[in-house]
């Protein structure tokens, strides 16, 4: 990029990223939109621009001067990467993704260029099977303390005694309701789907994601979120096809619709629920009492990472509780690390959206690897979307 081109820019890269971050916060949903549309690539290009800026003279030699991370929208405190650059001289290029499948597709194709990425629990065994993630050298991660991690959320990072991924945060999949528009109190997935066809007609959104949309339709009948049984999936399909004409949208980008008041109810991930409720108090976050999904996002390092030293350095930096606590305050998802929880303000720990009561957590299920890759569920989703 020539110097004259950069001079001609009406807005500086830093300024642009600030603006973008501000717009992204609260206006774009977690998984789907950025990755789907390529806005993530735009962010990545801007981050690369920053990478061209002169790095501090004290840059550690062995870490290089740049690395790239693949993660989710609204998922980090931008200051984290700025501070990491100040400390180490390594500029972090942030790639924002729409779905786990997309991340998998990119890594499978090779040469992703990432030195760190944020997969969800149910994908790690697939990555391991395909041999595209690195067994972690725990000696390089002194800030990580396994004994402080809640074992419920860390299990899937370790396969046959080898740790491939360490947890970032956990969360749940419930639904968000605008209680001014839908005044009847709701506590279950049955009510979610029934309301979608009644008072919530043409105002309800479901994820554009087979795992959660089919999973939560299965919960209507009390079946497992991960069911692969033909007859149970057939019942879920029947329900989905019946609900389809009543929906406002099939999209994982639900924050704009909920904020504008076009949508009154949506399937929703914890962190989006917390952000919506923070800004618009009448939007409540509900966990279906039948159960549903609980998830953990991990950090992992691809086998073909171009800058493994920086990948480890950033991962170790993110595992520092002082850093992690800021991350959690920014993205709104609950931490798996007891050391971080000690540092979080009381009102965060008391927030039932982030830390639901135990009886609501008990029936939740982690998504399974087979659920995500099942061709039958993919076809069911296609029939639902094209109906």
């Amino acid at each position, binding site marked *: 990029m020539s110097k004259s081109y950069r001079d001609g820019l009406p807005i500086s890269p830093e300024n642009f990223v600030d603006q973008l971050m501000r717009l992204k916060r609260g206006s774009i949903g977690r998984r789907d939109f950025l990755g789907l549309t390529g806005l993530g690539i735009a962010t990545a290009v801007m981050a690369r621009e920053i990478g061209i800026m002169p790095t501090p003279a004290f840059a550690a030699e062995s870490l290089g001067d740049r690395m790239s991370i693949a993660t989710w929208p609204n998922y980090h405190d931008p200051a984290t990467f700025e501070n990491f650059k100040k400390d180490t001289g390594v500029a972090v290029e942030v790639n924002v993704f729409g779905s786990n499948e997309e991340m998998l597709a990119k890594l499978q194709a090779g040469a992703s260029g990432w030195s760190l990425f944020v997969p969800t629990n149910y994908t790690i065994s697939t990555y391991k099977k395909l041999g595209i993630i690195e067994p972690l050298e725990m000696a390089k991660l002194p800030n990580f303390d396994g004994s402080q991690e809640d074992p419920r959320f860390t299990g899937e990072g370790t396969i046959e005694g080898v740790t491939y991924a360490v947890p970032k945060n956990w969360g749940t999949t419930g639904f968000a309701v605008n209680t001014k528009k839908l005044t009847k109190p709701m506590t279950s997935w049955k009510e979610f789907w029934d309301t979608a066809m009644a008072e919530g007609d043409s105002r309800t959104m479901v994820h554009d994601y087979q795992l959660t949309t089919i999973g939560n339709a299965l919960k209507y009948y009390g079946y497992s979120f991960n069911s692969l049984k033909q007859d149970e999936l057939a019942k879920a399909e029947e329900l989905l096809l019946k609900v389809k004409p009543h929906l406002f*949208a099939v999209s994982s980008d639900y924050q704009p619709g909920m904020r504008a008041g076009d949508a009154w109810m949506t399937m929703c991930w914890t962190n989006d629920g917390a952000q919506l409720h923070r800004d618009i108090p009448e939007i409540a976050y509900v966990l279906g009492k039948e159960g549903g999904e609980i998830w953990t996002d991990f950090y992992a390092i691809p086998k073909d990472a171009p800058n493994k030293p920086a990948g480890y350095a950033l991962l170790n930096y993110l595992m520092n509780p002082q850093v992690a606590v800021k991350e959690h305050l920014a993205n709104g998802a609950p931490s798996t690390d007891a050391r971080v929880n000690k540092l979080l303000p009381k009102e965060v720990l008391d927030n039932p959206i982030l830390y639901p009561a135990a009886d609501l957590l008990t029936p939740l299920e982690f998504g399974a690897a087979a659920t995500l890759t099942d061709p039958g569920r993919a076809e069911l989703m296609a029939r639902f979307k094209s109906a």
Partner: protein
Amino acid sequence: MLLGPATAWLVVFLVLPFIAIAVFSVGERAPEGGYQAAFTFAQYANLPARATAFWNTMVLAPIGALACLLVAYPVAYYLALRAPQRWRLILLALVVIPFWTSLLMRTYAWMYVLGGRGIPALLAYIGFEDVRLINTPGAVLLGIVYGYLPLMILPIYVSLERLDRRLLEASADLGATPLSTFLSVTLKLSLPGVMTGFSLVMILLLGEYLIPTLLGGGKVFFIGNALVDLFLQSRNWPFGSAIAITLVLVSVVVLIAANRISTRVSGARRVDLI
């Protein structure tokens, strides 16, 4: 020798990718998704599983192109035959300038214009409560017309601009009403431009997925959406490739048909579509 670079360009960017897709389309989906080598036509046999998506696309493409045409023709007519000479260039530039911004950005802007805090909020202000514009078929049609309008206006403008004005005078001198002059002279002579614009917009619409996703709420499923899902979500590359090949074949058939029709109606004048 000038053909060298052009041929190389075509081979690298058109022929090789097409061959790769063709090879994928006779393969199998690997257990974890992606592609594994095989030789089977199972993917093609499975095409009916996306019949609805094909059907939706076949309905959307001509309707969208027609709506675009109805809006574009008067604009092109005004630009070519009515606008004052000194304004013409500026007006043409105004038609083209929105193209400098990506379609994604412009469509995302419409999401906010049509969303609850946009036009519906204004309508509520003057007494029409709870009007919903976003995620309706009308919103999708609006997005399509808006997005592809310049592609329709420009070819029609070019053919009208080339129109010999003396023919219009002759028609009037011979007693034709303005309407019949328009129908039998202006319209007929601009048909090559109309068909070019129509086929251009229609072919792009055959692969459209962004506008229905953003302005239609993802409730209407076009073949473009099926492709995105197959490659990025379920990672069934072979089936996606088979659909892509079928879509290319359909596009070629549409092109040939459009060419035939316009050659016939415009009196055997050759039409360049590309």
